[in-house]
């Protein structure tokens, strides 16, 4: 019998095509930097070449005299941003401290920090003029090497980061099988295709329009309004298309505030697009994180003790924190569990969330350690996981709303051909390459937030849905259209229009944390249901379920019918633990002489409730797997710590996977609804698509070679000898 039938899984429907696919492939989709405003000027930064200290002198005369230059701003002449002075921070810091304020004083906190901003009538002229800015510095000793200051790491403030203890995790006396291992995830830098970009256009003294690369038009609106002491409605933020963000546009960064400030001062619209190398120094990265896992188990593979410690970097001026160790508390049924999370400041720009944020870092350590334990116990790694399956949430004792992790293990194992895996490493060779299999799982919280959606039935029969959410490439517009079409059965998809990415639309949260399908989808669903009811009331008794809406509006002589609905999760959710799960399987080949690793096969299984938009969901899984392969095999931002500067700040030297690195990726879905989370039964899947993937690759490399690489990325040099 097929697996599908065995589990009684409803077959996936085909799903609709990406609603904006045509716009994207024809170039008609407009991204922030592509807008043109009459009188546009261009901003380019001159950046610090020292890592820590103060600006002694800064000479902007040559830059000011250069052709086409309108203004050069430094800390000496930049107008004060009003929100900076009152202590109201324009862009909320991730945890503690405060964001960098540009051009307020002469201090340099990290290499690459902007020290001057040139505004000129073309990008090329601004770039040239910026190269003429000459700064002299008083240098102070700096530290950018996190590995050297791990002992200085401290627990961040707040209950979320306090040491966690369940039972007696440190009690090792009677434990028959022990494992201790250290893992390192390096800096992984945000390198989406689209660079950070903003156009700031003041249309009146107290009003402006902003085209921005952002994951949240509302949060950008608020950040700018606060910084410039404006009513939020005076700031109009547009982000219709976003060319990949992965977390780097969750915040309003200091350079964006600077662009708005400059536009006000030169009284012309200012366009600021970061260069690729600036991207490394400006919009965050996955922080370098050292981790240690201690496991105790019985000889038959029951976990008894589990301790997970992580120490990560942050900047000297801001505390960045993420949920690196959280998964260890509930992923496996283990009575004695401890987690410790610490951060340590270094002289760099502030890290930020990167797809599958801390969980991806944590899952690399935990899921490798479980594999190492399986090896020690001479037990199949899936069997070990099944033996320690958590039937209820061991962290809080709550039942799971739904959890089909065991099914996901099985589906993936069947598809990849797990039975061909040999438990003894380095035992399969084909055409001179070593072959290995590995797996790793991922988990991420599934919730539902608050969103407002306006649903309008127009006189032409078009159903218009409006909310301010952005689509960072994941296919939000497509998923929302699909959800609406399932409520309004009978209305063709081509007659459903989803309008997004504008701060003047009803509010939705920032796109991030795998929450949007659930949150905005829930609100779209509720708005559509409410609009249908409104129609039923209008028609009165005896109306059909699928009325001719155009006719109804005509008969009643009303131009359109609309509802605006704000909705969020229900309180019942609090009685359950809700997570999305993923299980990744890979087959790798490793060249025994050169250490080259190639991925032969990938199967990723998602247990994320009902799959509302199969096509874009598949793309999410594929993209996450590719991101995970990059994290596992090649991504690493390398800093020369003597200078505090990156030595691979471009796409030739900072490697992400290219087509030739990626085999066919099989995306499988358990596709069982979780109606406790939202009425569609759908849970998020953006993060789980990546979380656990790097462990799967590392485990497969171990299975192929017998070499356990605990420090990412697994480059050929680490597999020699």
């Amino acid at each position, binding site marked *: 019998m097929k697996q599908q039938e065995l589990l009684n899984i409803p077959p996936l429907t085909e799903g609709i095509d990406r609603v904006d696919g045509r716009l994207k492939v024809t170039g008609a989709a407009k991204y922030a930097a592509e807008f043109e405003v009459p009188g546009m000027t261009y901003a380019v930064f001159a950046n610090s070449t020292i890592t820590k200290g103060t600006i002694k002198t800064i000479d902007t005369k040559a830059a000011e005299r250069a052709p086409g230059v309108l203004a050069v701003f430094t800390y000496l002449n930049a107008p004060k941003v009003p929100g900076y002075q009152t202590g109201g921070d324009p862009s909320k810091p991730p945890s503690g401290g405060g964001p960098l304020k540009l051009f307020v004083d002469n201090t340099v906190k990290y290499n690459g920090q902007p020290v001057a901003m040139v505004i000129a009538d073309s990008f*090329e002229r601004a770039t040239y003029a910026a190269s003429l800015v000459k700064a002299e510095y008083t240098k102070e000793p700096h530290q950018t090497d996190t590995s050297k200051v791990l002992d200085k790491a401290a627990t961040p403030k707040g209950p979320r980061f306090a040491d966690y203890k369940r039972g007696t995790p440190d009690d090792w006396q009677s434990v028959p099988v022990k494992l201790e291992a250290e893992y390192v995830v390096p800096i992984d830098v945000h390198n989406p295709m689209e660079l950070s970009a903003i156009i700031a256009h003041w249309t009146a003294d107290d009003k402006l329009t902003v085209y921005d690369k952002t994951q949240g038009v509302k949060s950008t609106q608020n950040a700018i309004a606060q910084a410039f002491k404006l009513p939020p409605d005076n700031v109009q933020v547009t982000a219709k298309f976003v060319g990949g963000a992965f977390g780097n546009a969750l915040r309003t960064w200091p350079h964006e505030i600077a662009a708005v400030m400059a536009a006000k001062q030169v009284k012309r619209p200012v366009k600021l697009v970061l260069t690729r190398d600036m991207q490394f120094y400006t919009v965050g990265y996955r922080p370098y994180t050292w981790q240690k896992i201690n496991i105790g188990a019985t000889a038959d593979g029951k976990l008894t003790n589990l301790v997970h410690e992580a120490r990560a970097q942050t900047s000297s001026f801001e505390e960045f924190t993420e949920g690196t160790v959280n998964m260890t508390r509930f992923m496996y049924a283990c009575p004695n569990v401890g987690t410790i999370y610490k951060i340590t400041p270094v002289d760099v720009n502030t890290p930020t969330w990167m797809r599958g944020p801390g969980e991806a870092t944590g899952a690399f350590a935990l899921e490798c350690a479980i594999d190492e334990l399986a090896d020690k116990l001479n037990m199949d790694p899936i069997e070990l996981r099944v033996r320690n399956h958590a039937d209820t949430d061991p962290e809080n004792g709550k039942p799971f709303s739904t959890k089909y992790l065991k099914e996901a293990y099985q589906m993936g194992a069947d598809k990849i051909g797990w039975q061909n895996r040999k438990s003894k490493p380095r035992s399969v060779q084909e055409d001179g390459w070593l072959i290995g299999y590995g797996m790793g799982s991922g988990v991420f919280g599934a919730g539902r937030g608050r969103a407002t959606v306006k649903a309008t039935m127009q006189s032409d029969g078009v159903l218009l849905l409006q909310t301010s959410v952005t689509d960072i490439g994941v296919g939000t517009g497509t998923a929302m259209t699909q959800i609406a079409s399932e409520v309004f059965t009978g209305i063709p998809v081509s007659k459903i229009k989803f309008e997004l990415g504008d701060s003047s639309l009803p509010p939705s949260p920032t796109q991030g944390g795998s929450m949007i399908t659930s949150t905005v989808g829930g609100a779209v669903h509720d708005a559509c249901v409410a609009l249908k009811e409104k129609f039923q009331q209008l028609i009165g008794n005896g109306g059909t379920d699928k009325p001719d809406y155009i006719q109804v509006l005509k008969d009643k002589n009303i131009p359109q019918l609309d509802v605006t609905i704000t909705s969020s999760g229900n309180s019942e959710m609090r009685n359950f633990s809700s997570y999305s799960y993923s299980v990744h399987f890979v087959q790798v080949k490793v060249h025994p002489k*050169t250490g080259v690793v190639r991925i032969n096969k990938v199967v990723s299984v998602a247990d994320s409730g009902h799959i509302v938009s199969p096509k874009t969901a598949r793309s999410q899984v594929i993209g996450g797997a590719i991101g995970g392969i990059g994290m596992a095999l090649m991504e690493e931002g390398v800093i*020369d710590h003597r200078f505090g500067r990156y030595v691979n700040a471009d796409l030739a030297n900072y490697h992400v*996977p290219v087509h030739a*690195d990626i085999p066919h990726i099989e995306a499988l879905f358990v596709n069982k609804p979780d109606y406790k989370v939202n009425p569609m039964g759908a849970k998020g899947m953006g993060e789980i698509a990546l979380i656990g993937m790097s462990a799967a690759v590392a485990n497969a490399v171990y299975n192929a070679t017998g070499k356990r690489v605990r420090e990412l990325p697994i480059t050929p*040099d680490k597999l020699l*000898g």
Partner: protein
Amino acid sequence: MKQFQYVRPANQQGVLAAIAQPGTKIIAGGSNLVDLMKHGVMAPDKLVDINKLPLRNISGISNGLHIGALALNSQVAEDQQVKTKFPLLSQALTAGASAQLRNMATVGGNMMQRTRCPYFYDTAMPCNKRAPGTGCGAKEGFNRMHAIFGFSDKCIAVHPSDMCIALAALDATVLIQGRKGTRHLKFTDFHRLPGTTPELDNNLAKDELITGVEIPNNNFAQHSYYLKVRDRASYAFALISVAAALDIQNGIIKDARLAMGGVAHKPWRLTTAEQLLKGKPATVATFEQAAQTAMQGAKAFKDNAFKLQMAPASITEALTHAAGLV
């Protein structure tokens, strides 16, 4: 980027006159030069575009093949004569860069491309090649990609080309045109070692133009292989590359050519190893011996010690492939 002038002379004379002036620079495909200009590493006052010159042809000559300096990397890689007579060159070219870049890159430009040392690229860092006397940032810095042969106290950079490794192995000749006339250089004499003048990559004078390369006929077509070991499957520079060409008759190696990339400031011909291979049976044991010989004198830095192991392994692997043993 600094503002600059641009000329596109109609003929060779015009080009030669233009490049004799100070501050000028030839531009062909622009895929390396423009990049360096954007980074502020090179800042010519005037670009001399040579694309009007009739240097695009690939044609058979009495003792081999002539390839014009403006022949595109993709064009050479796909050329039937090249594929039949010198498959090693075709393989090396397709191992380089990306399809888009190969469609722009020319043979002359590829030979003249500059090192990918990150300190060379970043004007905020010290680099003797970019700014003589400022020191070598890589020597005590990040030097994973750097040389294990032929480096100097002043510079430890490697030449990044794949094409040039094959041309060095194939005994090619470089055709050079100056205002006083034409000269020929052995390909292996074209690029330089850094010595005390790391600012010089090669022996082409400022006022000279590469017009083409010539490859003599050989008996290696049956048994040649270009191996490129890199951090990802495509679009990455070599950690180590090996161009291996063998003339095998009845299981015995009659003649051999070997060159390595990613190890030195110039394509690194392994002549001692070639000598060792001659007359020996084409077996893995022979190849391993040759690989050991080739490594004599190699010395590593902080981050590139792995090359001492990867290089001989790659030589053996490339020869094994060339011999058809895998």
